[in-house]
């Protein structure tokens, strides 16, 4: 069975999954602490509209999904900053409008077909070398941003007002984080699909945040949970004939639950 992993498509699936999982885990820590855990969910719905637009216009679906998601990320920032709309309300509006637009466009394009389903549920076993390179670029960029801007990012997550008073440009950092999340969501769609991409942003990071007692530990544990979930989920998909996206997300939940129980036993008792 081991020789299965020498197959190119499986190696690409594993590489892309791990890289995107790590990018999501790192970003997710900051999103959860900023109370923006559901932003991935909202932007994935908007990305769905971009995909449907691409299928309807017969243009690059992923490219359009990226453009539409970035526009939605910008809109979210402006709704919060300028219109005084609360974060969760802004997300509720943008995500439902995105999904509704996607449904209309998919219907107009008569494209409720395999390609649309691929984006909805992920196609990790059909990842191309170019997509692996994109995932590697994204993961490196996210890790690079966090290493270089570690202290301002942590400061913003910990106490935005103190961060501002210390000279951290909190609004600019938040906008950058939202844009990076939009890019990650679009690339993550190919791995686990529109419906489950936000799980990669939330569950490993939630596990890391509950298990760690210091900040670097939270980021490292989140990444470890993402790595084990992607590799284990892919193996489960292969050997147990399960859908890969579902297996990855369910496994990450089991790890989260196990860490939660362990943490309770070791810290709170």
């Amino acid at each position, binding site marked *: 069975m081991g020789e299965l992993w020498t197959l190119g498509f499986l190696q690409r699936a594993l590489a892309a999954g791990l890289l995107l999982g790590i990018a999501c885990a790192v970003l997710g820590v900051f999103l959860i*602490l900023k109370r923006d855990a559901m932003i991935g969910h909202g932007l994935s719905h908007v990305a769905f509209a971009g995909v449907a637009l691409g299928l309807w216009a017969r243009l690059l679906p992923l490219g359009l999904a990226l453009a539409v998601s970035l526009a939605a990320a910008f809109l979210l920032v402006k709704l919060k900053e300028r219109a005084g709309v609360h974060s969760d309300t802004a997300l509720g509006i943008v995500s439902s409008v995105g999904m509704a637009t996607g449904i209309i466009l998919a219907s107009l394009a008569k494209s409720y077909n395999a390609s649309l389903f691929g984006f909805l549920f992920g196609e990790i076993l059909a990842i191309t070398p170019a997509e692996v390179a994109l995932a590697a670029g994204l993961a490196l960029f996210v890790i690079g941003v966090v*290493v270089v801007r*570690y*202290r301002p990012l*942590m*400061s913003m997550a*910990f*106490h935005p*007002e*103190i961060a*501002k*008073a*210390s*000279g951290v440009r909190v609004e600019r950092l938040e906008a950058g984080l939202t844009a990076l999340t939009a890019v990650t969501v679009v690339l993550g769609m190919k791995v686990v699909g529109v419906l489950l991409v936000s799980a990669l942003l939330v569950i490993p990071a939630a596990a*890391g*945040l*509950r298990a*760690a*007692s*210091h*900040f*670097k*530990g*939270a980021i490292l544990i989140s990444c470890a949970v993402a790595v084990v979930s992607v590799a284990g989920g892919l193996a489960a998909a292969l050997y147990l004939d399960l859908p890969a996206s579902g297996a990855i997300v369910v496994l990450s939940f089991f790890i989260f639950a196990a860490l939660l129980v362990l943490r309770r036993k070791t810290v709170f008792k």
Partner: protein
Amino acid sequence: MAVKTAEKRKAAETLVSVEAVSFAYSGHPVLSDISFEIREGEFLAVLGPNGSGKTTLLKLILGLLRPDQGGIRLMNRPVDEISDRASIGYVPQKATHIDPFFPASVREVVGLGLSSVRPWDAAGKKKEDAAVRGALAQVGMEEHLRRRIGSLSGGQQQRVFIARAIVNRPRLLLLDEPTAGVDPETVEHFYDMLGRLNREEDITIALVTHDIGIVDRNVNKVACLNRTLVYHGSHEEFCRSQAFRDLLSGGHHLVSHKH
């Protein structure tokens, strides 16, 4: 000795200059035509009843809000032009109302105050460790270095926030209601600690508080607000002033005093 101290004060640099500042939230006036200075070495208590604009004034000084009229200068430069904030420490109101599960150690929280150190190289890490330990020692929290911030009591957390604010060895420390929700005994130690930072570490302090008792504890200047500046001067004179009596009687009828 008194003459020498007076001369030192006279020569002291102006760290904060509030110049005819007015501010309104959505058209509702909060501060009107406020002018005063904070000079190096001062320990200033900013007093006033609820809604008198104390916190707003502090946020204006920090550049977190922009005045509708007038201007604010920090270290002789307009507040908007100051990008390096290492010389200013800030402890906000309800600083300790943080997520109790936030995964940050005391060491990490204090380290957040350091802006210029690069913790990924060995020399930077050593320098950072020394600065963090030094700041925690100043507030008597050195032994809690590795504890999670959320596991500390409110008073201990407040000390850690002070350590974060002084870790860069600032010239100016601004605190907004730092003793709210802290037990009386801890408040006593807290004021002693601030007095020591002011006297021994030469940190100029501006403290917004409801606690009128602060005027007997280390402060040498008082600014009393009630949307306008009703008093600014020495704490000895403040204790004899009408503004003080009005504040004691409930603070709703503060009257303008000669400034």
